[in-house]
């Protein structure tokens, strides 16, 4: 996704990888732009895994804290930023799913109030939050949503099911076979078919990412 914005210097005009490099240099405005681009997708992913909006929002925050802490570890030769973020969010969400704990609401509220009070001071003067709904990157992401949704919907239901169980529930193929009552070979075949179909259908998207 090469930026074509006419506002050089603005974070909204930067590629995803450039933003991550700036995050590694401790530039909060770069993290904010990454957040604006990917938070809706990552939140949808976490919510799909956890089936709980509040937990999903906590995971979302943890993901970007991790990006802030480990931004310098991102290697564009290994994956796109989009996939890197998606897999961090997925891992966080599944990790939380497996060790979900009940947080006492009162403590949560107090913590939020305290963080909010500190944040009100900490954020002031550091940077000005902004949104760039018209930015080209956002348009690309919206188009990506539409295309991937269409191609996923076009998959046969049984193929989509095994793929989603692997991705959103973190199940191995053996676990999927046991849970769905299918032979392991069938699960593998369905997975392979689904992935190949997606790969062929989403070539333009993958080309943009690579």
């Amino acid at each position, binding site marked *: 996704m090469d930026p074509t914005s006419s506002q050089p210097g603005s*974070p909204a*005009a930067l590629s995803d*990888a450039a933003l991550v490099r*700036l995050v590694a*240099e*401790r*530039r909060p405005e770069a*993290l*904010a732009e990454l957040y604006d681009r990917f*938070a*809706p997708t*990552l*939140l*949808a992913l976490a919510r799909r895994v956890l089936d709980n909006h509040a937990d999903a929002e906590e995971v*979302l*925050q*943890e993901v970007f*804290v991790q990006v*802030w*802490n480990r931004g310098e*570890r991102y290697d*564009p*030769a*290994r*994956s*796109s930023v*989009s*996939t890197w973020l998606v*897999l961090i969010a*997925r*891992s966080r969400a599944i*990790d939380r799913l497996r060790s979900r704990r009940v947080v006492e609401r009162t403590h949560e*509220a*107090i913590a939020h109030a*305290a963080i*909010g*009070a*500190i*944040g009100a*001071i*900490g*954020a002031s003067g*550091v940077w000005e*939050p902004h949104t760039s709904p018209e930015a080209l990157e956002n348009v690309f992401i919206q188009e990506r*949503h539409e295309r*991937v*949704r269409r191609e996923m919907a076009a998959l046969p239901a049984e193929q989509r099911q095994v793929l989603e169980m692997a991705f959103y529930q*973190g199940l191995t*193929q*053996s676990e999927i076979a046991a849970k769905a009552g299918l032979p392991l*070979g069938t699960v*593998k075949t369905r997975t*392979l078919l689904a992935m*190949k179909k*997606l*790969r062929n259908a*989403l070539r333009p998207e*993958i080309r943009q*990412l*690579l």
Partner: protein
Amino acid sequence: MSEELTPEDLALLAALAALQPEAGAPPPPAAHPAQEPGQPPPPGDGAEAETLTRLYHEVLGLMPFALAPAAPSPEVRRRLMARLAEPDLAGRESAAAPSPAAAPETLAVAEPAAAPEAPAPAAATAPATATGRQDRFAPASRSRSASVPGRSGAPRWLSALAAALILALLGTCGWLLNNLRERRDAIVRLAVQRDAALQHAGEAEARLRRLTSQVSSLRDSFSVMTSPAVEVCNLRAATPEQADARGMLFVAADHQHWAMSLRGLRLPAGGKVYQLWFVADQGPVSGGTFAARPGAPVELGSDRMPAGTKAVRITLENSPGSPAPSGPDVLRNADTLHTL
């Protein structure tokens, strides 16, 4: 199935296996990823396997884009940015400094068991520009330490911590006070509701008592009227002013229980009441006073009747009644009591 697996299949399965937390960080495709039992290793052609695995890795990364985007609340973004300003996160670069004496990294969020990493190619250290992407933005050149002012000395750090604690305390107090106020308001609201409910219940109870009394009275009257050998007597108007007034007197066989039904009585003038008299051997005996409303019947009754009663009279007396008939007759019995 393993006999039919192509190199592409193996690369694909490697990408999938890399998703498993148990596998830890996904190894490079050239090496063998975590495998399902019986799964053969990826093909020996490292470059091809690497490309294919990366390809399917990206396919997996696209999957969440099939979900409808969910808008996080603005509070999440605000909290995140506030969190970046916290000393433990803002001071992370100290840990990355080459000096071993630097402060250790204190991450606010623990690394998950399976921190995802993209599959590492053989040339994992390739520079970012290897992607061929040209980033037009030239970030401002500044050192990390310069990007986080105010971290140079312990006193400032302690001040920031103290300020944070004070703010947290103030926030907590504010929250508690607000909570207390809300609870107090809720208690007052509930008390008002309770009082209203109690009043309503009292009114309903009084109405029920009245209705029960009326039902009981009607039952008694009905019992008298339908008793065997009941005697009945017609009552007629005794004055032209109350020409529409009429009534019936029912007396049970024991000559004690009686019931009276009156119609057409006018509303008595101010300070006046109707008074019932039993005319017995010793003279008129008061049976009590009562009021009347236009159009509404008057039902009277009792389980006592003076001995030797031969007739009844209803007169209009000054309130609250008279010891002996003194006002004009309104109704009187048209005939003597006779057995039905």
